[in-house]
């Protein structure tokens, strides 16, 4: 489903080039759930962005859904994201000018689905926000916003879901509920899940874990994140 080899990422900073990823090779099978952990600033988000085709690596190759995204142009990658990729972010990334329903409808509308409204309502209902369709993000709590984001991520029936610290901005109880929702939907739809987190409980629920240390991936320490 998702594969990369010898992935490197170097960015220019004021203090000179910064080598964030130093050669990452990885293969994730369809339907798998993977947790990527690592210290803050270790490059987790950078890796996720590359795997999802939001950015290009300095070197190395990436395949998503049997297509090499490192050989695609931005438009082709956009098409691929539309068909295969869903996102959940730490900071929710809902559009403030749109209601909950409209936020979920957005990917469906972009892909030209005529039943966007019905589908979006269904997913919002599924995450327990049926009565809050017309609320704007700033009228919702953090947990509710993240549930909207989850509904949006699943709305397009992606084959891979990338979640970047989905509970990072939430308290423990709310975070736990979000995790439940995420995994329930994942089970129902059979989506591949790539989860970036620093939360033990979340990582534990994945089939296996990887840790990003010093720009390289290594299996997560069993005592830290048992598979």
């Amino acid at each position, binding site marked *: 489903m998702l594969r990369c080899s010898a992935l490197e990422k170097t960015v220019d900073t004021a203090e000179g080039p910064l080598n964030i990823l130093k050669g990452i090779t990885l293969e994730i099978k369809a339907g798998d759930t993977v947790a990527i952990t690592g210290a803050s600033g270790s490059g987790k988000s950078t890796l996720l962005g590359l795997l999802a085709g939001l*950015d290009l690596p300095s070197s190395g190759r990436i395949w998503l859904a049997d297509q090499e995204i490192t050989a695609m142009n931005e438009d082709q990658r956009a*098409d691929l994201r539309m068909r295969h990729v869903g996102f959940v*972010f730490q900071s929710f*990334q809902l559009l*403030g*000018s749109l209601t909950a329903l409209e936020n979920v409808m957005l*990917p469906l*509308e*972009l892909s030209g689905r005529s039943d966007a409204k019905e589908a979006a309502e269904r997913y919002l209902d599924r995450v327990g926000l049926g009565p809050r369709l017309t609320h704007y993000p700033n009228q919702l709590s953090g947990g509710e916003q993240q549930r909207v984001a989850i509904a949006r991520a699943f709305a*397009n029936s992606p084959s891979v879901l990338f979640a970047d610290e989905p509970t990072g901005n939430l308290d423990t109880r709310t975070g736990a509920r979000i995790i439940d929702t995420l995994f329930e939907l994942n089970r129902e739809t059979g989506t591949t899940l790539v989860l970036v987190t620093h939360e033990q409980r979340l990582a534990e629920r994945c089939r296996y874990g990887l840790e990003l240390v010093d720009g390289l991936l290594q299996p997560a320490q069993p005592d830290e994140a048992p598979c």
Partner: protein
Amino acid sequence: MLSLRLLARDWAAGELRLLTTALALAVAIVVGISAFTEQLKSALVSESNRFIAADRVLMAPNPAPEDWLQGAEAYGLRRGETARFASMLVAGDRMQLTGVKAVSPSYPLRGRLEISDTAGGPSRTVDHGPATGEIWLEARMLPLLSVNVGDRVEIGESRLRVGAILVKEPDRGDAFFSIAPHALMALADLPATRIIQPGSRVRYNYLFAGPEKGLAAYHDWLKKRLTPDYRWLNLRDTQPRVASALDRADRFLLLASTLGVALAGIAIAISARRYSERHYDAMAVMKCLGGREGRLFGLYLQQLLFIGLLGFALGAALGWAVQWGLSILLESYVGDRLPVPGWRPLAMGGLTAAVCLAAFALPPLLALRTIPPLRVFRRDLGNERRRAWPAIAVGLVSLTLLMWYHSRNLQLTLSLVLGACVTLAAGGFLVLQLLRWTRRRTANAGGALRLAMASLQRHPLRNALQVVMFALAIMLLLILIFVRTSLLKDWQRQLPPGTPNHFLVNILPEQIADVRAWLGEQRIAETDFYPMVRGRLTEINGTSIEERMKREQRHNEVQDRALNLTWSGDLPADNSIRDGSWWKAGTQTSPPEVSVETHLAGELDIRLGDRLTFQIGPETLESRVTSLRKVDWDNMRPNFYMIFPPTVLDEYAHTFITSLYLPPERKTVLNAFVQRFPTITVVEMDAIIAQVRGVVRQVTQAIELVLWLIIGCALLVLLAGVQASIDVRIGENALLRALGAQRRLITGSLWLEFSTIGLAAGVIAAFAAELAVWYFQERVMEMSYAPHPWTWLLGPLLGAVLVGGTGYLSCRHIVRVPPMRLLQAT
């Protein structure tokens, strides 16, 4: 359509209102003002109805060749004809010297006549003169001749029936040459009277009316044939005051629309930029969700197009309403329905909208296009300082082109743009330095002031830019207020109450004492009595005028026309020497000195020291030009092109002229005056003065209305500017409150912060506006410039109050909402 749905959502969220409003205002101003200026032009035409009964008049001392007149028909012009002369009217044993106008059946080409059957009775309008065999008399004549409507009067060898009482005629305004009282007859009856003999003084007027192009083309054709005896007149020649009032109003409105468009353009640029910045996140998210860059950008472009259409529709409707209101004002005065303006104003509005969107709203939107999807992880991506120069350059060039297009004056536009750029850049730089300097000074000031200063200093460049932008808006507003004020003042000064409204001409030297005594008895104040000698300027430096004109390839609008010469020991009031010097009392030179009016001197290219030869009766008089003199022709006093020192003209036959003010209710005094001094000509100017006042009043109202529109634009710029800076402030202030700052402190600091920005903007604006107004008044409006000391108060005050107020009002909600919500939302 997805773009429409997105647009509707953004609209509901209030994101687009400012942009659309700014666009609508730009369109409204352009449509409203250009439609109205078109109507002003029609008003000018109907003014000419009033004053010359035609669009153009060819004035001649002899009948014009028939083929000249027929030539007019080839240009699609209608024509008419009048002949004016003085003649004795006789009824029984009564006789009265009367100014008679014989008119062709097509007279009047423009405007209508008003007649009645009994003196003071109800009047009716007609669009033709008297039928053959009829004569129409002014009411004043009935008692003089002791006749009534239906009676017969003799004129020359004919007897004509008094058909009606003449109440009003369209070209009565051209009264200077006519002799009161007055009568109208048919041109066809003229030969039978046998009044017109070779050598008798008749003035033939050939009237033309038709489309402006035809008139111009015909004049070109005719020009080559005209001899110096002929004069080609339009309203500008006969009614310079009305024409100049309308001209100035026209120029003011053009200036207003130019500034309005500039202001609206700035508001559009700011709000589009904010709109675009607020969509960076949305763009990144949508790219993440799989939207292609081109497609997403297309969505935004479509939105822009819809906004353009919406703004245009709203603006066109508003503009139409504005012009409708203005035209009602104008119609109430013109009395005629003005033609509905055509599609041109709408097209101009559409063009303006398109250019505004393309030049001001598109560049910020282009920045949106390249927002990387990775921004969802790193908020700062795409925020890095985009090079603003290309957008600013595009905006500036388009603004210049737009202003040029609207003002039709490249020099004005360039100097305005350049002047604004230089002063504002200098002002901005100064503010920047000041901000950096005060950083150290205010470090230990307390409370709100320190907070405000800290906030200003946190983003010195952005705040300096904001100051410059506000300064620009305030400057444009100040300019318009200045020009308007001095325009109105100028108009009021031109015809103050009590302006002389009657001239007494043809007073013999020995009558002066009697006239003075009589006027004194009636308690009527007259201006001085000025001597008047009829003469003709025939040669300049020994060359005949005719030859000189030919040599200089000038067309013969100015010719050796008859001039009224006068003498005076002192420089008359309202005259000022522009070149040379006025003579000292008692000095005699040979050849005698002469002072020439500057305008005529310009037309005939007369310079200081030139030798002028005059023909006065059968004699010639040589003189030397020793001064050029500017005359205020608007003051309704006797004014002269040529003034000689006293005694030079003593030996020539001369009469005197004076002017006086007569309130309307005392007009009947004239009957007694004419009876007492039958040889003195009374020239009535009161109707003209009333016209000019009417034009000025209506146009003034129009100008006020337009000013409000422009104020709306300026406020919009302020609002857009404040809102653009609010996004940052909301975050910062929420944080401050979270950290424990009290509401009072925050509102106080916001007030101070915005007021300080406004104050700085106001000072710069006052300086820039003063500079610009000096330029306008001197160069564009042809008015004299006087500094405006109160600008220096008004500018900063206006800035502080407006910007402070708008800022405070727009930020008010920041302190009402719990800080938690704000922190969440950002």
